[in-house]
């Protein structure tokens, strides 16, 4: 079979690649000289110099103090510094009840956040609210906006159109086209679980160990699985809430939990869960008092989760599975019971490498929007 020929890079693409290469080295170093950049990138000194001058003109890099001369003597080199305040990124995460946005510097330090509640999920209502969140964060910005990065649950195509979002009830919604009419900056739309795992890879405990295989299971109104291997992130945005599981009843998403609660609550009239609207945190609290209803719900959730985990482990045997979403409010008991059910489903040797952890999805998805913006627009991380 003939090997598929790679198209040749154009001069413009090459220049862009070299610029990103140099910028990422400056970003990763506290300080670095032009000569050191030439050594680590393999680019010629004149090429490095031209690109560095461009980056200085753009305000992304500044020259600072002097470094040490080389062993052969000569003038000490001028050191270069990345300027995280030179641009800002707006990240937006869409949840069913609210839009949450952040304004961040290029070192991902968050400057301000903005929240707008959502009462209806109709795109004609939600898109203008996204615009308002962006405007509110732009009002707080004191640097040029490098890009806007948005996370949505569901299947997103390569152009950034939402093909399907069960959480919002959307089919083929082009948020990106609507926003491009209003904002003259690059806009990226991604699946929210992809962003969660992107943040874990970029800023989490595995950031220096990209060879790990990570999986994230996001549980909210829908259930999505994302994976990362060798620093690359994979996500298809499929809602796994309704895949057949070898357990009854299957309780994965929030709606299924509410339905189950409604179906059996009358058998437990004294449960403390009836005192306030159902939340994972209150289920956990009720467990402390040996509440039978809470026990049943947690066992059924853990059992269903164990079946999803079994699929994930069987397919790829990840080093770690992270659970995100409000469900993590169930605490250690969720991971302990899920692990116990997993032991019964999968042979022990399949499990020994996989650890299970929990992480807050809101913070991670927002950090993920910033990570995506930094990777796509600045070429770092």
């Amino acid at each position, binding site marked *: 079979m003939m090997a598929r020929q790679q198209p040749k890079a154009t001069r413009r693409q090459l220049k862009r690649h070299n610029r990103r290469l140099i910028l990422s080295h400056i970003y990763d170093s506290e300080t670095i000289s032009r000569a050191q950049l030439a050594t680590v990138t393999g680019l010629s000194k004149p090429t490095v110099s031209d690109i560095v001058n461009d980056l200085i003109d753009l305000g992304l890099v500044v020259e600072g103090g002097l470094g040490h001369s080389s062993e052969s003597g000569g003038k000490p080199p001028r050191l270069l510094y990345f300027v995280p305040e030179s641009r800002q990124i707006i990240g937006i995460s869409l949840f069913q009840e609210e839009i949450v946005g952040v304004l961040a510097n290029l070192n991902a330090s*968050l400057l301000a956040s903005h929240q707008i509640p959502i009462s209806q999920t109709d795109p004609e209502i939600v898109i203008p609210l996204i615009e*308002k*969140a962006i*405007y509110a964060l732009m009002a707080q910005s004191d640097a040029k906006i490098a890009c806007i990065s948005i996370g949505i649950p569901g299947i997103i195509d390569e152009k950034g159109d939402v093909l399907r979002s069960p959480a919002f009830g959307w089919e083929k919604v082009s948020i990106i086209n609507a926003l491009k009419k209003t904002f003259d900056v690059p806009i990226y739309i991604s699946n929210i679980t992809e962003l969660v795992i992107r943040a874990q890879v970029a800023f989490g405990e595995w950031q220096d160990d990209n060879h790990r295989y990570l999986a994230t299971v996001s549980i909210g109104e829908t259930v999505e699985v994302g994976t990362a291997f060798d620093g690359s992130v994979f996500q298809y945005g499929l809602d796994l809430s309704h895949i057949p599981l070898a357990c009854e009843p299957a309780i994965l998403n929030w709606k299924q939990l509410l339905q189950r609660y409604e179906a059996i609550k009358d058998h437990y009239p004294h449960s403390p869960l009836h005192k306030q609207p159902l939340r994972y*945190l209150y289920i956990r*609290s009720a467990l*402390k008092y040996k509440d039978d209803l809470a026990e049943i719900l947690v066992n059924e959730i853990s059992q269903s989760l164990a079946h999803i985990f079994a699929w994930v482990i069987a397919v790829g045997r990840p080093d770690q599975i992270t659970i995100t979403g409000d469900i993590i409010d169930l605490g250690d008991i969720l991971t302990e019971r899920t692990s116990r059910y997993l032991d019964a489903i999968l042979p022990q040797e399949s499990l020994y490498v996989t650890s299970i952890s929990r992480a807050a999805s809101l913070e991670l998805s927002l950090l993920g929007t910033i990570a995506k913006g930094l990777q796509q627009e600045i070429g770092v991380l």
Partner: protein
Amino acid sequence: MMDKAKIAVITNDANQVFQQAVISGLRLVLEPDNLLILDAVGKDEQNLNVLSIDPIEMDAFIVIANVLSDGALHKLQALGKPITLVSHQVADLSMPSIRADSEDGMRRLVDHLVQCGCREFVFISGNMKQVDGVVRRQVFEEHLLRYDLELKKTHLLPGDFEVDIAEQSLETFLQLNLPFDAILASDYLMGVRALEVLKRHQFDVPHQVCVAGFGDGCEAVSADLTTVSIDIIELGERAGRQLLAQLKGIALIGTTFLRTEVICRASSC
């Protein structure tokens, strides 16, 4: 040359520490291009009639905390002019607001005290008519549940953001002789007063009891109180920016939040 926009800053005490700092931040952003006019309503007079300015002559409004009632805010909104609320929020009104991220700050303060080994908390609550007072207490109680801890009813003390009320509540609580190993106050001034009360009763802080308060200021620094700090001047600056965007014709809604930071001092581990 365009006339300067007349911006009314509505307070109930422009010399009070918090309001003074907000106004400093507002001045940094809004002056000299705009004209800032301070006007105060009395502590218990949350209506527009007591203002010395005529709202119709103003171009925009900054309203600090809950100095105006919801009804008065409704009337102000009906004028159709830009409004920014500082440290306040009204659920059924679509006015934009600026607040410190009390939720995040309170969670981080609880995290810190739990890491110090505290398990038996006393909470001195703020004014439950103010959003910050309500949110801080709610988030505190919820976050304790994440550590499988609970706030006992006896350990929830009224403070109302007034140091004298906080002191009185704590004195009454101490007479009950109930076990506790941490006091978290809904604002740092009540926290400072709590430290003074504990000292008077010869408690060993932080070995016997850890104390922390929300917000930060020179009183907290002098008392060596652990706090979660909010940059109140920045709160004012960001409110000014939000109002400027509205003056440019951009319709805003929702709440902008500022990050907070835990400042560990000698009153905790």
